[in-house]
């Protein structure tokens, strides 16, 4: 250990205090929202005067909320599939390719992570306005895919770099064609990378706010857009209910991811 805790004297209590305070700071809004979503106060009083489920009832009674969730889910799944479909060959080219400019290609695929989202948003906004595609499924998917692609490329490149190409060569010398070797040996070996790439791609799409605001039309909204437009009007506790559901989903995804990683890495 870097400096053993019990050798640090009183300094360690300072560290503990900072860690405790930081955890509290990080969890404060998360826990707070969860509490409020069950509170009966329309004005978000804390502590709430009483407990209720009515904000969840309002949420599930409103077809617009449900519609926006459905749009988010569809877009997310579509982005996830396309992100892997495009990212997989790209990652193979980056890792296996022997052409000049390979590093530049890698940088290019990751570049959307560097460009501030607001810039991508207005650039795409101009494009889809020209094409008359605002509010279309295609606009959402294309916009989200730009942000999701670097994640699948990074995940797959990392696992592909960790995969010893001799194993694929061994399969070929055993009599497998290149395609057979990739399908039966390489892809199964890098499935953890593909899976994380898919998961990240979905989450990127599911959570994306800025691009979605610009892609949306009053008729078609993803869940974050619906939250955004609602938030700009008032701080209704319905948002607390939605947020709580999203937090529960986050925890579920974290647990599933931890479980999968432990199982597959075995």
């Amino acid at each position, binding site marked *: 250990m870097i400096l053993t805790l019990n050798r640090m004297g009183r300094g360690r209590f300072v560290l503990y205090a900072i860690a405790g305070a930081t955890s509290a700071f990080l969890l404060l809004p998360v826990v707070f929202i969860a509490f409020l979503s069950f509170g009966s106060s329309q004005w978000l009083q804390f502590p709430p005067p009483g407990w209720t489920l009515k904000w969840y009832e309002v949420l599930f009674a409103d077809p617009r909320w449900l519609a926006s969730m459905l749009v988010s889910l569809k877009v997310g799944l579509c982005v996830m599939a396309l992100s892997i479909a495009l990212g997989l060959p790209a990652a193979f080219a980056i890792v296996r390719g022997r052409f000049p400019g390979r590093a530049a290609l890698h940088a290019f695929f990751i570049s959307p992570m560097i460009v501030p989202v607001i810039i991508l948003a207005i650039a795409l906004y101009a494009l889809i306005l020209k094409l008359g595609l605002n509010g279309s499924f295609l606009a959402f998917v294309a916009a989200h895919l730009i942000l999701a692609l670097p994640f699948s490329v990074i995940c797959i490149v990392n696992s592909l770099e960790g995969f010893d190409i001799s194993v694929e060569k061994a399969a070929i010398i055993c009599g497998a064609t290149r395609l057979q070797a990739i399908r039966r040996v390489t892809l199964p070996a890098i499935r953890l990378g593909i899976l994380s790439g898919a998961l990240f791609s979905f989450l990127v799409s599911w959570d994306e706010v800025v691009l979605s605001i610009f892609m949306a039309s009053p008729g078609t909204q993803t869940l974050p857009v619906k939250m955004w437009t609602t938030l700009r009007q008032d*701080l209704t506790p319905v948002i607390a209910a939605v947020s709580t559901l999203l937090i529960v989903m986050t925890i579920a995804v974290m647990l599933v991811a931890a479980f999968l990683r432990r199982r597959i890495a075995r």
Partner: protein
Amino acid sequence: MPALVFLFLFLVLPLSSLFLVSVTEPSLGLGNYAKLLGDAAYGRVLFNTFFVAGVVTCVTLVIGYPVAWLLAILPARTAHLLMAAILLSMWTNLLARTYGWMVLLQRTGIINRTLIDLGLINEPLPLINNLFGVTIGMTYIMLPYVILPLHATLSGIDPAIMQAAAITGAKPRQIFWRILLPLSLPGIGAGCLMVFVMALGYYVTPALLGGTANMMLAEMIAQQVQSLLNWGLGSAAAFILLAVTLVFFAIYVRVVGLGKRS
């Protein structure tokens, strides 16, 4: 390669045409850029942006360093709990977290009420719809981005180096200042540059926690394009932001290296 075609159509093409807009609308030339850099009102926006990004970077570093350090030296079980808290906050929906801060910081929010109840203040403090609210919200959101690279660097340092320093007679304080801190500089650089660059172009949190009086750059870009339909000025502002971002990213690559993994 399909990915290449896709990125060309939806990244390169829109960005290039946006650049064209910035130098052709309303008239050909660099008028938009001159206006942005010359006008005091826009200068104010640029100042706000850099100021908030700078403060957020410093605060996250000061809070984040001890946390990253603890993550590296705590017993595994406790460290996992702390890490889970960090990841949970990081992965929770951005709007959900921002909403939480909107509620916490509002005039009738829990912070103001508590302070009034304690008799510390008579009138609610203006915690939201100003740069203070933006700074709180952004610090909260950026904190994990400084903790994680720092943690990676700190846990990559061979503990035997510290032991070697101790056995040669260095006191813990000396070990920290003369060994640990210099060795963790790459992590500090990586974390700070990442937070600073992200903060420069951040849109959501300033838009929700900030006020109309003190805008930041990303808000201004959106406003110019969406509400004022002033595409020329909006896209020029976008390219100023992009240029600044790329400069800092170049520094990042210099300091940390690209895609290097520990």
